């Protein structure tokens, strides 16, 4: 007999997200469809598992997490930069539904970044945890060794058209002019017996 675990995530959009003041805070901004209209990344990893790993990475370094949802754009650079601008520490993480992730800092140009993980099919749960960890370390003002960038030149031929379809679906959830909101989140772990 085996056991399998599944993580349920509840995400509830709250009131408008304001600028934080806690210097330990790292803001994670999710894209419009994340955990709502879409629930899995391009390689079918549940959004709940992705978010839980990033948060764990932040918190194991003593960081404080706040999750917000951006409605205005599906563009990762701007999602990440918004997170950084609203973050008490000035460090933010942006994530799209297909799994692409960025670590941003508020004083950088939007199209620049601290670390970018552009190839969503290659990001493992372990990498998501490392991304959270590094963001918390940047927030503490430390010199940080970047998470190694994984590169698979054959990800494009296999996934680019699918990525475009996921992005089109993401874009259908954009609400122009709607400010970002704080998101209450909770995880429920359920255990199932399997034969």
């Amino acid at each position, binding site marked *: 007999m085996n056991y399998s675990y599944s993580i349920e995530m509840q995400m509830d959009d709250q009131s408008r997200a304001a600028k934080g003041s806690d210097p330990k805070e790292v803001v994670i901004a999710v894209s419009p469809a994340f955990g709502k209209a879409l629930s899995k990344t391009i390689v079918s990893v549940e959004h709940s598992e992705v978010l839980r790993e990033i948060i764990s990475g932040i918190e194991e370094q003593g960081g404080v997490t706040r999750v917000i949802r951006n409605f205005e*754009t*599906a*563009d990762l650079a*701007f999602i990440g930069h918004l997170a950084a601008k609203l973050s008490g520490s000035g460090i933010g993480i942006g994530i799209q539904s297909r799994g692409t992730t960025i670590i941003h800092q508020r004083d950088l*140009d*939007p*199209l*620049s*970044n*601290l*670390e*970018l993980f*552009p*190839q969503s099919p290659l990001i493992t749960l372990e990498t998501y945890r490392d991304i959270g960890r590094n963001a918390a370390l940047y927030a503490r003002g430390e*010199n940080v*060794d*970047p998470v*190694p*960038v994984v*590169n*698979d*030149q*054959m*990800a*494009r*031929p*296999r*996934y*680019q*058209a*699918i*990525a*475009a*379809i996921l*992005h*089109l679906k*993401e*874009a259908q959830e954009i609400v122009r002019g709607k400010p970002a909101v704080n998101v209450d989140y909770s995880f429920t772990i359920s255990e199932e017996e399997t034969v």
Partner: protein
Amino acid sequence: MKPSPTAVRRSKRFQVLEDRPVNKDGFVHEWPEQGFVAMSSPNDPSPSIEIQDGRIVELDGKLRKDFDMLDQFIADYTIDVATANEMMNTESVDIARKLVDINVSRSEVLAIVKGLTPAKIVEVLNQLNVVEMMMALQKMRARKKPSNQCHVTNVRDNPVLMAADAAEAALRGFDEQETTVGVVRYAPFNALALLVGSQTVRGGILTQDALEEATELRLAMLGLTTYAETISIYGTESVFKDGDDTPWSKSFLASAYASRGSKMRFTSGTGSEVQMAGAEGKSMLYLEIRCIMMAKGAGVQGLQNGSISCIGIPAAVPSGIRAVLAENLATTMFDLEVASGNDQTFSHSEIRRSAKMLCQMLPGTDFVFSGYSAVPNSDNMFAGSNMDSSDLDDFLIIQRDMMVDGGLRPVEESEVIEVRYQAAKTMQVLFDELGFPAITEEEIDAATYANSSDDMPKRNVMEDLKAAESVLKEGITGLDVALALANRGYHQVAERIFNMLKQRVAGDYLHTSAIIDENNIVRSAVNNENDYTGPGTGYRMSEERWEEIKNIRQAISPSEY
């Protein structure tokens, strides 16, 4: 319940086919409502033009009051109102025939195209099959001599390896070299590695560092790069605005490069608007034609296109690779330099990627690849090119098989080892002179014989990043680099770097399709204009060049037996 596939008896032939590399590629049916269609969408406009008092008041069925910013830019700065009515009244099929006809000169076609609207160009291109497009591209390319560009990057941004790879790429014949970063803050080191590595082998090679636009411009202004290419433009207003940009802001950026005497071109390509969910239901080719015309209106000398990083999107739909050839051709029809893609992985199939590449290699373009990965694709930080360093012998042999000049030359292993050593050694001296983290003899040895970054000892990344950041902070220039090398007796490479700075003052290499030869002479569409009018005209390989291409190291001499 879905039937289990194992329950169904399978054809053994289908099982063989399923295991073929091509079946790892992604293919999708057309989705025209979202612009997931290559060359023609039911939502594409029909060609039309209306001119009042020398001003375009209607463009492709849209009145001026309804123009988006691209319509306005193209109407005001690209289309020649003096000839537009006449040219728009020419049948599209007749224009298509002139493109292919060897008896119609390049300049005659250029004069016609000036008066056409985006929808009309799309209609013309839809008349052509791929062989006709290649015929047209052979004639319409701006520079007579075709050339090639490469990528030089590595996963760890190792500057010693990067300089050695740049030196090898220079020896192999690439006239332009492009790098980018894994970690953004390494950018100044990567620019330095390409500059020093390429100039170690020959003067005149152009180098660039593809980055976020402000940093890319800064490095060019410092003289650490000698051209730029990653200035992206898009075919719809919404995608432009997503990038916080307009045709005017991109034009301003272009003039910033021009004001510093640095070559630059824009970048665009089919599929980018679909990828960014902003295609507005238009075909990929129609939107790309708008980009090409925007580039022309902005006054830049050239464009990198051929889908580029979005190649997986046109490649997934019918006639997509044809659309990519069509966009390269369209660029040349506006008298612009074309750096014609082939620079990104789009297929697992060796047959498919060769077939695609031949569309640009056989007719010849200003840069057949933009670029060819001079390093293994595992080290390619543009996410992989259509061909990489392990395909170099295939490419050289295709040049020889077809008697086609793809810009590369066969090289000896001993020469490669020598120039790689020289480049790594020069970097060691430069780092020492500038007070950067030391480059060890062990690193030089590894870089000399390396294939990839796996072969390199690790460097202290944080120390490197501090030094790299100091390049920007202290404003270390190309002149500082040349002086540092001259101080240590490296006069030849110092002089070559200094010569690249002199080119910036002379400005000749701002002309269309410019490259600089080993004698520091600019070769552009001005002094090397393509004059193809059929057999016996245009670019023909010299005897010397053919001897070079013929003599691959693998060939056996009959006298050996």
